[in-house]
């Protein structure tokens, strides 16, 4: 059956089973490859994207529940030439090693910063708890989020290509 999805402000008609996980549609149908398949069980966070204002595990989000809701992926935040403040902070802190978890980390952190412009270290840790990094760059990731929060005070919430229209 056909389901209409709004992803990074673009509407897409998807022909798939309603129980298909959003992650598969993003990667296979739309070639939006930022969100990663890690565990497929909502235990690692590599597939995190935003639905409305909330971070969700796209591997456990059937497309049937997304009617009329707004999906945002890393591709909607910024591009290599013009990264969002959060992406820029991840680059400045060199927060990626293998990079597999990073799109999920950034999207989860984005949700936090949109709600709380000045999170404490404890709030950042608490919020990021569901996302795992196996390389060991957690400390850099935490620093990048902290840095982004400070950078964003002088800019806007950090959405570029049509993400927050």
């Amino acid at each position, binding site marked *: 059956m056909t389901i209409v999805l709004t992803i990074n402000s673009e509407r897409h008609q998807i022909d798939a089973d309603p*129980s298909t996980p959003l992650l598969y549609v993003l990667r296979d149908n739309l070639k939006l490859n930022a969100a990663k398949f890690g565990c497929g*069980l909502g*235990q690692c966070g590599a597939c995190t994207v935003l639905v*409305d204002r909330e971070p969700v595990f796209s591997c456990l989000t059937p497309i049937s*529940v997304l009617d009329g809701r707004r999906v945002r992926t890393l591709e909607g935040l910024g591009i290599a030439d013009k990264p969002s403040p959060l992406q820029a902070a991840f680059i400045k802190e060199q927060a990626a090693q293998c990079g597999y978890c990073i799109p999920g980390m950034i999207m989860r952190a984005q949700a936090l910063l949109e709600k709380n412009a000045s999170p404490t270290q404890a709030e950042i840790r608490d919020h990021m708890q*569901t996302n795992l990094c196996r390389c060991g760059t957690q400390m850099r990731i935490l620093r990048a989020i902290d840095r982004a929060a400070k950078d964003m005070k002088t800019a806007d919430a950090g959405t570029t290509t049509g993400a927050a229209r």
Partner: protein
Amino acid sequence: MLRRILIVVLAIVVLAGGGFLAWAWHDELPAEPRRDASAYDPAVVAKGASLAAIGSCAVCHLAKNSPSFAGGYPVETPFGVIYGSNITPDRDTGIGTWSPAAFRRAMHDGVDREGHHLYPAFPYDHFTGATDTDLDAVYAYLMTREPVRHDVPAPQLTFPLNIRLAAAAWKLLFLRHGEFVPDKSQSPEWQRGAYLAETFGHCSACHSPRNALGAEKRDEKYAGGIAEGWIGPALNAASPAPAPWTAESAFNYLRRGFDRAHGHVAGPMQEVVEHLRQANEGDVRAMATYIASLNGVAAPDAAAKAEQAVKNATSRQWPIPGRETTGSGGSSTTGLDGAAIFAGACATCHHDGGRLPISRPVALGLSSAVNGADPRNLLQIVLGGIHPAPNERGAIMPAFSGTLTDPQIVALADYVREHFSGKPKWNDTGTALEAIRRGKNS
């Protein structure tokens, strides 16, 4: 004549009031001189530590991001918020000046060292049954903790409950003093478990309904209660668990937070299990023996019935491969087909033969959250998931509060109820969800 009657009534009121005040009056007990930790026998301190773990003292007497027992945890009651007090041996803000006698009086009578009545959010209606020796052990344990200077906010209660004498009136109505006496016809292990569960463990505080004044209903003990927005499931014959509790399964649950016929611990009970892990193992076994006896099912029958329940629940498991997207109301074009939501959001873990390296969910048909008459616990788990304590290992279920809209959560919960429990439909799932979203805890 009328005047005479009025005078008599007035006299009775004055006498009764005076009598009540005299009864309610408690002297301040003398301050205890400071003592070194070495003054306490380490064996007694260890015993006290285990009893404090069984009592889950740290749940309410723990401040967020501060050491154990410094207080500050907001206990939300239907009457207002009460903050767990500082029970570290700090002499100014804790209980450092309390003598063993003052500590016993607080635990037995709900009166602090200065003579103030304490509110029954502090479950002295249970602790009143504890022996002096045990209380002295808990005292020794608390007095050997690090003193922490930490002022705790005053209770925020509505008038007239903000007057501490209200607590005295409550005690007059509901507090039964005296050491707990178990049924002597039972095994020594059962008796030990009964004593611990009824006194320090205060299990029935969450697993029994309460009356309008917040006291446990004696005639409905263990018929199920409410705690922090969760149902404390019935442990008596009305238990919603399809597998009757056995001493073994109750021990697994209380000690490890998991049993194959009941699943993983969730909600406020998670913290209880975190504490029971640190208690004396034999004591936890004894409590399990007592708790398992509450449903009235004889032990051999309970084990056989539990096996049957596991079989029944397994036969209702979600099959893999192939998705069942029929069998539930609603239409998938509106995203309200509970079966389709289950297939995409839940079945990856909750399917027949599902094996996770970290946590293996049991068949949903075994869950008391799915089988209970009230949908609240299932909704709470769907919304918030299950997470181990910070820095601890344990089962993880992700939270779905942001993934699904409220109507979708209702459709999913109703589907899970219908498909896995075989019990009558819930009629009030939407109302229950709304209440949780509003943060209404009772």
